Every structure is written in structure tokens, then in C-alpha cells.
């Protein structure tokens, strides 16, 4: 079992220290490359994955007490993707950090592996399956409660979509987590301003989100979800202690759908995409600062 208060970060088994902040941008870039590559041959929820790629990279390298060796350790920190369709960003992070071979990413959607559109425990590092929005805050509540019962110091992080906040089950779980005073629980909202097809504020307005969490007995902070230094200031401390003792902590991370690939940024019709091989090359170029990819395949409405 991990010693309580073990150092954080899982850059690899040879290190038990957090990764240096300067290494995060290149790592996140590699993660985005993988995500873009998964958006063909069947495709993936590329927009939703790119918006929280930085959040996931930051959590794995600067926050979570978790490494390849401690994947099954009861003292590990947990990360749960409640908006499960962002799992390409997780697959990519797990591959880059050595939790699984990078080659496995090529198995995306293939019968002989379990790398598909939503998370499942067939992938090392995935704590629980998801795909139905509004479940994992409840599941996390159970995990966090058990950790407290056992006197554990570890934390449970959950990434929620902003559109996911429509689901009443999220608020029900918020009430319960607050009633149980689970201050080892952290919810991070990927505030990319869109749900599947529309801007949240044009469909079901969610603002003020912090006021909602506060009224439901949580603490709530807001952060730029693409700024590693800001995430370090706001999210990293939650790996040690709650923002307010006795309360679960929420963080609203302001993000951009499709972040990093201008041609698809903040576009509902590029939320899920299944590009041609040529388009993928163009998008990878964009990721590296190249010219606009000049997408030709039609936008998709899959939901």
C-alpha cells in the first residue's frame, strides 16, 4: 500500500515526483495528436476530448497520487470521467505516461481491444465505465465515503461535462456528497460552453454555475482549464486538502471545445468527427501551428 502523503505525479515508474510544469505543454500536444488520430476510421468525440485534454494531463502529472505500480492500490487517488466521451484524451494520456503501450491506441474501435467511445475497465487506469451522463459523481461519492471510513488520505476527482449538469442526478449526488461531508471529493466541470448540439446558455442556461455548487453545500472555484499554472494554483492543492474543510470541492474549468485545432474549435458540428486520412494530416498540422486544415467532410450531428 502507498504511504499516505506519497509524492504525486505518475510520469513513469522511475520517478515519483510531479512532472515539471514546463513538460506539460509538449505532453499535452502529444496527447492532442493522439486524439486527432482517433478521429478517423469510425471517429471519436474529438471536440469533447480536446477541451479537457489539459485537465487530464495536469491531473495525471501534477495532482494524482497514482502511478503504473499503484493502479490497484487502495491508497491511490482516483480520477473518474463522468463525461465518458472524452476518453480519447485519457487513452492518450495513459499511453504517453506508460500505463499502456502507445501502439494500443491504434486499436481504437477494433474488436480485439477495448478502446472504444466510452471508458471501460478493460483499459488499465480506467476506474469505472461511463457513457451515461450523470452517474459517476454518485459512484465517486461511494468511493470517497469508503476512503473516509478507512481513514485514507487519498482523493477522488471526477470530470463532469457542463451539459452533463442538466442531469438531475448530478445535483442529487451533490446533495448527498455534501450531506456526507465528503471533503475528499473534487468535481471538475469541463466548462466548454457546449452540450452536444448547442451552446449551453442557448439551450439550458447553466450560469451561475458556482452559485449552484455553493448553494448545494460545496466550495467552488473557477479556473482557466488550459492554463497549467492556473490549474496548479487551483486544482493541485485540492490533492492535499479541500478548499473548505468538511465540504466537497468543485472547480469550474473554463475550456474551449476542440481546443488546439482552430478549424474545429467551438463548433457543435465537429464535436464528434470522422475525418479522412488527409484531413487528419491537415489537423495535425494545425495543432502544430500550421495553416487551417481545409476540412471537406461534412459536419456531423450525431446526437
Amino acid at each position, binding site marked *: 500500500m502507498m504511504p499516505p502523503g506519497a509524492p504525486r505525479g505518475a510520469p513513469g515508474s522511475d520517478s515519483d515526483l510531479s512532472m515539471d510544469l514546463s513538460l506539460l505543454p509538449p505532453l499535452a500536444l502529444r496527447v492532442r495528436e493522439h486524439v486527432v488520430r482517433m478521429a478517423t476510421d469510425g471517429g471519436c468525440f474529438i471536440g469533447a476530448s480536446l477541451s479537457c485534454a489539459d485537465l487530464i494531463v495536469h491531473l495525471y502529472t501534477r495532482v494524482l497520487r497514482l502511478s503504473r505500480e499503484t493502479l490497484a492500490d487502495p491508497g491511490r487517488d482516483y480520477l473518474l470521467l463522468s463525461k465518458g466521451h472524452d476518453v480519447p484524451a485519457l487513452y492518450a494520456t495513459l499511453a504517453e505516461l506508460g500505463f499502456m503501450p502507445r501502439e494500443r491506441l491504434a486499436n481504437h474501435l477494433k474488436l480485439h481491444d477495448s478502446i472504444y467511445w466510452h471508458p471501460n*475497465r478493460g483499459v488499465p487506469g480506467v476506474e*469505472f465505465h461511463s457513457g*451515461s451522463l450523470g452517474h459517476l459523481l*454518485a*459512484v465517486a461519492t461511494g468511493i470517497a465515503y469508503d476512503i473516509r471510513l478507512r481513514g485514507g488520505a487519498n482523493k477522488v476527482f471526477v470530470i463532469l461535462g457542463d451539459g452533463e449538469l442538466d442531469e438531475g442526478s448530478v445535483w*442529487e*449526488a451533490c446533495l448527498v456528497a455534501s450531506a*456526507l461531508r465528503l471533503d475528499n471529493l473534487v468535481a471538475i466541470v469541463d466548462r466548454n460552453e457546449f452540450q452536444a448540439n448547442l451552446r449551453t446558455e442557448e439551450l439550458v442556461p447553466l450560469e451561475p454555475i458556482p452559485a449552484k455548487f455553493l448553494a448545494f453545500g460545496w466550495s467552488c472555484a473557477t479556473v482557466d482549464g488550459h492554463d497549467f499554472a492556473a490549474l496548479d494554483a487551483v486544482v493541485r492543492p485540492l490533492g492535499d486538502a479541500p478548499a473548505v474543510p468538511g465540504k466537497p470541492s468543485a472547480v469550474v474549468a473554463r475550456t474551449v471545445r476542440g481546443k488546439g485545432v482552430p478549424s474545429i474549435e467551438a463548433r457543435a458540428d465537429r464535436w464528434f468527427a470522422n475525418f479522412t486520412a488527409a484531413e487528419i494530416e491537415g489537423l495535425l498540422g494545425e495543432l502544430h501551428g500550421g495553416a487551417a486544415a481545409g476540412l471537406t467532410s461534412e459536419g456531423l450531428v450525431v446526437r
Partner: protein
Amino acid sequence: MPTYEEALQAIALARPDVIVMTAENRAAIRGLPAVLGERFVDVGICEQTMIGAAAGLALRGRTPVVHALASFLVMRAFEFIRTDVGIANLPVKLIGYVPGFLSDANGPTHQAIEDVALMRGIPNMQVFCPADAAELAAALPLLIDSRAPCYVRFNAMPPAVAHPTPFAIGKAEVLSRAPNAPHAPEIGSDAGAGGPGGRGVALLTYGFLLREVDRARALLEARGIPVELINLRSLKPLDEAAVLEAAARTRRLVAVEDHFQTGGLYSILAELLAHHAVACRLHSISLGERWFKPALLPDVLEHEGFTGPRIAERVLALL
């Protein structure tokens, strides 16, 4: 026999992995908070969150025993049960309070009369329907020991019958077997009232209705009808052999249940007979496709035709 609460308390004290949960439904376990402390969790009126949290606890090695009114447990939280507990095959034990007729005067919102259909449809999920408090208490240690998720149609009524057979998962209790030389049948056209080649009739039931069906059995026997009575306390896994033997002997099965006709015991038996290509008459005494009239329990039974005498009449009419 210990009460349900005593049985659960004993198990929870012996097994630190057991967590008792409820969504504002502690009537049957009101003494446990004092005994279990933080291992008793009342989440409030939050059935879905309770199930999600139970899955989370199970992921951490716990065995949650969760309580709620049956209709809100299996229906409001259906997708949570199927997705968080079912897909992951976690050992969460679902205890549904006031199922079937036991919701008496509450009305259709509270009538869990599709609970068996819903729960048995979930892969991995087991379904148990004790006939009385004794059977419930006897079943509890076994089903908590099992690593499978399960649904229990909670019933803590006084003894329905004397139970000759100890509870076992996947086993039925055969309470009476048609005698070899019955009195001449008084009714029906074919000998012994059974289907072609069979004799008598087999009554199959579960839960609280066993008491009434046993009364019906006595009445039918008094009229010379050979009756087999089977207590199907474990609906999933099913005691297929017990059913198939009864079918072979009587060639006439009657499923008696406070459940919609579709999806419960009648469907289970129809599927079994089809699977084994057994020729056998099968009848349903159930709620058909409608909710029952809300009233106090004795009135409901009378009105809906589920007292012993009314069941006997209805069986006679089928023969």
C-alpha cells in the same frame, strides 16, 4: 428465527465489508444506525445516488445492502442498477420494501408489480422472493455471501407455511407432491385434471402469496384434485429441475403471482417450457396488464381474487 434486522445486524457485525444503505426507508432496519454507526448510510430520498454510491463502495471491496421502496428502487433507479451494478457485476444487494400487494392502499405509483421482470432482465442479477420472515432471514446470509448482485422482494410476514426445505440459491421448495392415488376428480374432463398425459395441477408461486396458495391447495385437495405446490423462492437462478418434474407429472402448471402477467413467473415458466420443448398447459393467475385497486391488504386480496378460496376457484375454472 431472527428478524430481518437481527439477521442483517449479525452479518454486518461479523463482516466489516457490509454497508447498510437506505434511501429514507429504514422501517425494517431502524435499530441499525446505533449499531453500525458510519456503516449505516441513509442518503435521503435519492434512489439513483444510492445505487451509484453503492457501486462505488463495492468497487472498494464493500458489500452494500441497500433498501428502498421496491417501486422506486427498481424503477426510479433502474438505469443506475443496470449500468453501475449490472454491467460491472458488483455485489450490491437490493432490498425492495412493500413489493406487490404489500403496497396496499398506496396506489399505482407504489405498486412494484414488474419488479421481477425488471430485475431478472439484468445480466448477472439474481432474484429472491421469500415467502415470509423466516425465509427472508434464512436467505440473507447466503445471498450476502454470494458475489452476485441480487434483488430481494422484501417480505417479513408471519410464517406462510412450515418450511421443510432450507433456503438455497437456485433451489425451489416443493411443498406438496400430487399423491399417486387421488380421489376421483370431481371436475374437468380429462382424468385427474392434468394436461394430456399428466394428472393434477402444479401451483407455482413466490413471496407473500404462498400463504394463500397453500390455502388454495388444501381446498383443491379437499375437492379431490391432486395438487403440487412449489415455493419458487429463488426466481433467478431458477430451480429448473423442480419445475420440469412438476410439469412432467402434472402437465398443468399455474403461476400465481402479484405481478403483471408479463415478465414474472409466468414468463419464466413459458421460457423454460419452450426451451425444453415440454408439452404442458401453463396458466397465469396474476394482475394481467393492469394495476390493482388500492385498499387495505385484506380487501385487496379479496377484490383482486387472491385469497385462498378465490385462488382455488380460479384454478378450478382453469381445469
